[in-house]
Structure formats: C-alpha cells, structure tokens
C-alpha cells in the first residue's frame, strides 16, 4: 500500500473534527473517531518534524531519454 499522503491525512483529520463538533455522531462512534484522530495527529506531527527535503535531478541523455539522479546535497537551512 502506498504511503498515506499528508494531504489526505490532514483532510481526514479535519473531517473527523468537524463530525465530532457537529454532534451528529454517537458517543461510541466519536470515541472511535477520536482514536483515529489521535493516530492521525501523531503521524502528521512525525512527518512534519522528521521530514528532510529530497532533491533529484531529471536530465536527458544523448538519445533524449530522461534519466533520474540524486542531486548533490543542497542548501543548508
């Protein structure tokens, strides 16, 4: 399975919060949702804090074929 996308996880989290806030879900459901939300928050925070920019270069060889190579380490923050 593909790594879940930050965007999707963030959207799911927002959706959960809105559902809980709407008061339309039952207590049991909202407890499950809260658990899911806390898992998402943990995952998202981890991504935010541990991320490191990856830079690659796409260039063409003499036959016009695209080739991927890792760019040399760039930019200090």
């Amino acid at each position: 399975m593909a790594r879940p996308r930050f965007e999707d996880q963030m959207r799911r989290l927002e959706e959960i919060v809105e559902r809980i806030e709407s008061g339309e879900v039952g207590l049991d459901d909202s407890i499950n949702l809260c658990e899911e939300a806390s898992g998402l928050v943990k995952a998202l925070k981890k991504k935010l804090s541990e991320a490191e920019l990856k830079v690659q270069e796409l260039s063409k060889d003499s036959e016009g074929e695209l080739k991927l190579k890792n760019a040399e380490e760039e930019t200090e923050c």
Partner: protein
Amino acid sequence: MKQPPGSNEGSSRVYRVSEITRQVRLLLEDSFPEVWVEGEVSNYKEHSSGHVYFSLKDEASELRCVMFRGDAALLRFSPSDGMKVRALGRITVYEKRGYYQLQVFSLSVAGKGDLALAFEVLKEKLRNEGLFLQEHKKPLPQFPAKIGVVTASTGAAVKDILKIIGRRWPLASVLLRPSRVQGEGAAAEIAESIGDLNRWPGVELIIVGRGGGSLEDLWAFNEEIVARAIYDSATPVVSAVGHEVDYTIADFVADARAPTPSAAALVAVPDRDEIAFRLEGLVTRALRAGGEMVRGFAGRVDALSRSYGLRRPRDLIIQRWQDLDEMHRRTNSAVRHRLEIAAGAISSLDARVESAAPASVLSRGYCICRRQPGRELVSRSSELKKRMSVSLQFAEGSAECEVLEVEV
C-alpha cells in the same frame, strides 16, 4: 600648462589616468552639450536617492543614462524596460569610473520598442485565445509531495527555491529539470522541460522561472512556445521570472504568478510551523468537541438517573413503607377503638357496681342486720333466735335491737 586636446606635441607624453579622463571629459562635454537621443529603455532603476539610472539601447549599442532627482521628479510617465523613448541631455563623463553617460534632462515616449511591441502583440493574441482566463487556472495543491522545477541548474533561482522549500516544507521532494533560460533555443527547452515533468509520474506542481535580468534576458518567457507549454500543462504551473516589476507572458498564462523564484517557493508550499499550529488547533477543537460530547452524555445520564422511570422502584418502596405506616396507624386505631369500647364497658360496669353498693341500697330505705356478738351479716330469719341482740345499720346511723319473735 596642460596640452590642449588634439595637440600633436603631446603624442609622446605619458598621462596620468585622471588627467586623460579629464581631457576626454572636456572634449566630450564640449562636443555634445545638448543632444536628443532615441532608444529603448533597459535596466531602469529608481535609486532611493531619487536619481534614476537606465540605459538606452538599439540593436547595436547601449548608452548609460542618469537622470538626477530634480529632473526625474518632472517625469510625466513611468519609464519601463523596453519602452522606446526620446531623451534630451548632455554627454558627461563619470570620472571616477571612466565612463561616459547621457545626463538626461527630459524624457518623452517615442513609440514602443520592438521587443515591447512583440510582447504586446503576443499578449493580445493569447488573451484573445483565452489563455489567460481565470477559468483555465488550476488550483495549486495544498501540500505538494513532488515539485518539479524548470530553471537553470546553476544560479540564484534554483538555490533560492531549494532553500525556501527545504526550510518551509521539507516533506516535499523536488525534481529539478535543468534548462537553459536565456539565449537561442532557451524557450524551446523550457517548453520541453515542462512537458517532461508532465509525463514524469508524481509531479504535482511545476515552478518555472529564473532570476532577474534585462528584458532580453527574460525574453524566453515572453515566447509563444513557453506560453503554450504552460497552458497545456496538466500539472499546475507557478511562474517566477525576474524581479517584482518584471511581467512576462508566462506570468499571465501560469496558474499562479510569483514575483521572484523565492516567492514562487513560498507560494508552492505551506510552512510546516503554520501547519503544526493548525494541527494543534484541530487537536484543541477535537478535545473540546469530545469533552462537550462526554459532558453532554454525562448530563443525559444524570438527567435519566433523576427521571421518573428510574425513580419509580424507589417510589414503590417508599409507598410500601407508607402502606405499612398506614396499616400500622389503622391497626393502632382499631386496637384503640377496642380499648375504648372496653373502657366504656368497664366504666358502665363500674357504675353498676357502684349502684350495687350497700350505701346506695341503704339510702333507698334498706338496712343491714348483723347479729351479736360476732356481728355476722344476717340474710335469713332462720339465723336469728328469740331474745338475740342484733345491730341494724341504716344509711345514716345504726340501732341496737332485740329479736321478739322469729318467723321462718
């Protein structure tokens, strides 16, 4: 005494730099005290001092120009690069640097320059085709995971872009597609690179741009092939060409325009601190909503616990107690009633006993007879004998008597 300009006698002498510069200056300034020059404005810059610096150019040459504050303040239009103007001024020499320049007194528009004209023609054409319409603009992804960058592999632009993306949103990966951004063939290469990144899997956003330069330097971004490639790109494109003031055709077609490459990186990715903050906000909201929900349910549980339904069993018990009390009370009163009846009976008996007492009998005229000497009660005449002494007790007083005759 200095040699006058043009004198043959000085051909073998050695000048000092400032000396020859001064000579050139006098020669030039005397020769062109007032001239009209027509050309295209390039590298137009307003200095904070109020002086204005630019160049006038045509196909072959370039002339440095300066317009001092007092003259610049009288300008009736805003000159910009590419604009064809006619300048009135005098040639001067900036001795410190040893170059000559046109000190401009006044400036007027002289019809548009060729490049500017080409720019306007293409802009109008593409506008009419609808390439700039808002409805064709694609929204930028909020959290792009892979960002393609079309720019020169060396230079400030790529460094700025990587630096800012690395600082703000290192969750992304960047795919550089190095391309020439000026000179012959640059436009075709830029267009091809945009196509390449569209075919490469996973690219969610493309930044196309370069750092600042003259209108000629930026020209590739004013060419139709680049405009079409941006328009045809299925992946959203952010254009980032030159400085704030530079507008290119690419900027009009792009889904978002950033004034500089750094600004393009700012537009392209969110700031992770900001997102972390938003995340905290969501957590707070979730906790508050969850807390409210739990309190809500707790309140309902509380209310239910006080409801009649749940109170009923206890009520029933209380009622049983009441029933018991009631029975108790009724039992008591029944007993009391009986006692009262009994008491009544007793008192009537008492009355009868009372009425049966000797005193009350005596009061009705009876008397009690006792015989002597033992004073026993006499209730039959047979208990008496002739001459026997008897004592008669009346209701009041008594009498001692002698039996005269006994009849049985």
